[in-house]
């Protein structure tokens, strides 16, 4: 799945997570209703090499954020394995085992909710160092906080302020400073720029790239914005209703998308290069994840679906560019889409 021969930093295989949405037992008994399970993540496999960025993209409810939470131990997987440099983490809760978890950190989507409003910035940034014991001496810890604040583009004096005194972009910098305080090697970034304004988004994306270059970080990047993903990623995984439907190098996803859903996403994303493009494409909506369509989940929206797609779940098979979960791709029923690339050539 990757050109590198060395062992991957993170290896996720067969990852599954079901949420129980059933009503309480008594109500079920009275109403004679079944248990309701939502398969938020339904058999996801990928690996990330050290120093690289894998992005997971997809629409709401596709399970990409759940994958992030599973990796960080914020929810327990229903099945599958998560290995960080060989250490199995699927049965471990958040923060444990400390020597491994210290090396994994997370940046969150909402800069207004990810910092405790009652804590001063210095205390927020110092919390991981204190908890993991990387800087046991309070004075050394404070010096490190000052250094981190300057490293992410803020001032040492900002440590004494409260989060509400900062703008969204500055808060995200604080969040990044907290995440890198324990000198992690791996960062999970859950939509880190989607709550930010465009001009600030560029600042944060540049900062993240700079961190990656200087600290050799490995990223798992979660986003719904394909243009952002294009800028930051080496590999891209496209998710649909809990399943990974395509996984390929970033350039390949954009130049030569295999799965029909990937093609749909690329065609529908509003693009500033496409002034007044004709967009009258009936494409349907993501179905309710409680009752996903049988077979390939995408078949009701797919122009290439046939009887097999409706009945049988496709396997995650190797393609010319990477991996895809599609019968049409496997059977060679899909035409390479030359017209897309031509369309995008101008401007």
């Amino acid at each position: 799945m990757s050109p590198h021969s060395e062992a991957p930093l993170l290896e996720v295989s067969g990852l599954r997570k079901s949420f129980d949405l059933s009503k309480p037992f008594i109500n079920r008994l009275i109403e004679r209703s079944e248990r309701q399970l939502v398969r938020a993540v339904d058999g996801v496999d990928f690996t990330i090499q050290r120093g690289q960025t894998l992005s997971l993209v997809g629409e709401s409810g596709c399970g990409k954020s759940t994958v992030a939470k599973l990796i960080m131990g914020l929810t327990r997987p229903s099945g599958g394995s998560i290995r960080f440099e060989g250490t199995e983490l699927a049965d471990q809760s958040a923060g444990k085992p400390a020597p491994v978890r210290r090396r994994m950190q997370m940046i969150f989507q909402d800069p207004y909710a990810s910092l405790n409003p009652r804590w001063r910035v210095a205390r927020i940034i110092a919390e991981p160092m204190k908890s993991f014991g990387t800087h046991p001496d309070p004075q050394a810890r404070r010096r490190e906080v000052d250094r981190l604040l300057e490293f992410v583009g803020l001032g040492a004096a900002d440590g004494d302020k409260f989060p509400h005194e900062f703008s969204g972009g500055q808060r995200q910098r604080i969040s990044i400073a907290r995440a890198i305080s324990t000198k992690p090697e791996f960062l999970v970034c859950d939509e880190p720029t989607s709550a930010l304004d465009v001009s600030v988004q560029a600042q944060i994306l540049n900062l993240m790239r700079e961190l990656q270059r200087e600290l050799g970080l490995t990223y798992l990047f979660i986003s719904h914005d394909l243009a952002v993903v294009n800028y930051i990623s080496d590999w891209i995984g496209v998710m649909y209703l809990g399943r990974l439907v395509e996984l390929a190098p970033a350039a390949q996803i954009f130049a030569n998308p295999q799965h029909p859903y990937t093609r749909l996403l690329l065609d529908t994303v509003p693009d500033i290069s496409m002034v007044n493009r004709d967009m009258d494409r009936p494409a349907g909506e993501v179905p309710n994840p409680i009752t996903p369509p049988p077979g390939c989940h995408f078949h009701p929206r797919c122009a290439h679906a046939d009887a097999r797609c409706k009945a049988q779940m496709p396997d995650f098979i190797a393609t010319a560019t990477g991996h895809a979960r599609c019968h049409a791709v496997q059977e060679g029923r899909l035409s390479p889409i030359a017209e897309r690339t031509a369309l995008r050539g101008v401007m």
Partner: protein
Amino acid sequence: MSTSTLSRVWDSDLAWSFRHSKTALISSVLLVVLFGAAIFAPQLATQNPFNIAELELWNSELPPFWVEGGSRDFLLGTDVQARDVYSSILYGLRLSLIVGFASVILAAVIGISLGLLGGFVGGTVDAVIMRFADVLLSFPAILVALLVNGIARGILPPSQHQDAAIYVLILAIGLTNWVQYARTVRGSTMVERGKEYVQAARINGISGPGIMFSHIMPNVMGPVLVIATINLGMAVLTEATLSFLGVGMPATQPSLGTLIRIGNEYLFSGIWWVVIFPSIVLVVLVLSVNLLGDWLRDALNPKLR
């Protein structure tokens, strides 16, 4: 507290809203006067109404000083046992406020702890706590207080009833009022628990109790302050009601409620001052506390600002 902190407090929205609210200003002035009177009761009183040696029976049933037959030694008159009404009110106010504050603190501690625990842990623990709270809430508060009171009196030997009365009252009122805190704190805790800063703490290996107390608790205390203020008025009233019913403070250690009960017995013999003055103080006290609580609730609610 440094001057900069002081000026920041002075400049805060809360302080500004306080300075610009007549209700808040007037009620807090009244409360400062009443609290001051309660704290300095021994200095302000003209006699110690609990000291039988100081009572002279020929001074009994004197009207207030401005009424014919009144004496300037007894500003608000005396009762049938020759106790100075003014002094009794000061001491009674003191007892009422002690019971009020102590029971509010007890209720808040119980309510906050259970609310945090239920909201944070969830599941069975939460269900048990909240069902228990529901049951408690389905009885009138005064009935529960009477029940606790009755049980406590049943357990304690009669000789200790008088001395233990104040603790029994605090316990009875405190155990009745914690539900409101628990519900509010539980609700806020469940909201805060899902926020990303809590996830960040979990990722960094902070333990459950650590997250509960150092992260969540500071963020759920705002509404607690409002409840506590309004609850102080409630607690004082409950104490007065219990004492009025005769199951509260004994006549030898009268609180405002006890004074009103005693006075009530003589109202129809024309000795109106014994019941009227403690009643006025009680009404002013409870009204001020409630008005201040209302203001605080509005001031802390960003939607109403």
